[in-house]
């Protein structure tokens, strides 16, 4: 199973980035192969709008089926769920902690977006 995290670093010791759309990068951990891949989210960081949507599109292409992040907006949520990615909001500081919580079934899958998205 491929598990995606939002992060600012490039190892499992790195911090979990609470933002999804404007996260620095995704770390994709393959729990079967025990290896990891880093996917940059820079292109999305440069979008004036729709960062969450672009990030979700990028993530869908990685083949990850689980996303562990802080907050995920409604548009990204729609894209990810349509693509079959399960979203687990998490408050852990590091990816290692987040992964442990996930493996111990301490995280619950969200059925709705955790952010309201664009407020005016």
């Amino acid at each position, binding site marked *: 199973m491929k598990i995606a995290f939002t992060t600012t670093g490039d190892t499992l010791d790195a911090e979990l980035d609470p933002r999804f759309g404007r996260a620095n990068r995704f770390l994709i951990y393959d729990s079967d192969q025990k290896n990891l891949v880093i996917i940059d989210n820079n292109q999305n960081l440069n*979008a004036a*709008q*729709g*960062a969450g*949507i*672009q990030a*979700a*599109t990028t993530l*869908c292409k990685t083949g990850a089926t689980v996303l562990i992040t802080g907050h995920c907006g409604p*548009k990204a949520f*729609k*894209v990810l769920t*349509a*693509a079959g990615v399960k979203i687990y909001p998490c408050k852990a500081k590091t990816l290692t902690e987040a992964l442990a919580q996930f493996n111990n079934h301490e995280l619950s899958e969200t059925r709705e977006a955790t952010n*309201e*998205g*664009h*407020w*005016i």
Partner: protein
Amino acid sequence: MRLSPPQTTVQPMKLAIASGKGGTGKTTLAVALAQACLSPVHLLDCDVEEPNSHLFLTPHFSKKQPVTVAVPQIDETLCSHCGQCADFCQFNAIVALPKQTMIFSELCHSCGGCIRICPTNALTETDKPVGTIERGQCDHITLVKGTLDVGQAMSPPVIRAVKKQHDPKYLTIIDCPPGTSCPMITAVRDADFVLLVTEPTPFGLHDLTLAVETLRQLKLPFGVILNRCDIGDQGVVNYCHQESITIMLQIPDARQVAVAYSRGKGLLDALPDLKPQLQRLLNTISQSQQGGQI
């Protein structure tokens, strides 16, 4: 500046009230000008993210109309999931997944590009509400208020809808959104004259210079209203002098104005003596529109 004596009527024109930043007294001035006017006047509240004019006027709104924009809708049975529409959209409003195409109409700018580009004609346009406009009457003032719906990001379509209510038979005062970006430009465009409201402080001066640059690019005639004129320094006055910009009115800083504002009362409630000055101001601008000099 020579002020002409008060007249009973002011020529119909579009007078925009703008400012480089919020909190300078733009709305209170727009309302006071409308109240001071001796003939019927239209007040267009184009500050659609935060329409506040009605707080000082309490009109009876009679009509509420939706404002809509054209956004794409998809017929999934015709979609080949080629993804060309998503690639084309500059605003990230379309996502093409292998088996699904999703449209996020709140990000759509209604350019119509995706509809033109779709090779299977799976996309058509539909109207989506983004806000409302309301019309109300308060004595001689007809107020048109635009309100952007919560959750909508783009105010220009609502601003344009408010401005379409303009009736060339009447003096029309436009309360513009603050700043110098897209919404402000949409609101001031086509105005016959713009009044920039500022304060004689370094912040006021800095924001005024940005607003002046914007109006010069748009080639619109304008003058400055110096609010709370007895605070701060000479920076704005010196700048206006250097740039040959007319300071058309100075309004003193009065604690009672701030107190009145906090209680939803207008400028003329706090400073009734201002009324004849505002009338003279309207006459002066009106005459300049007929070829006179300010």
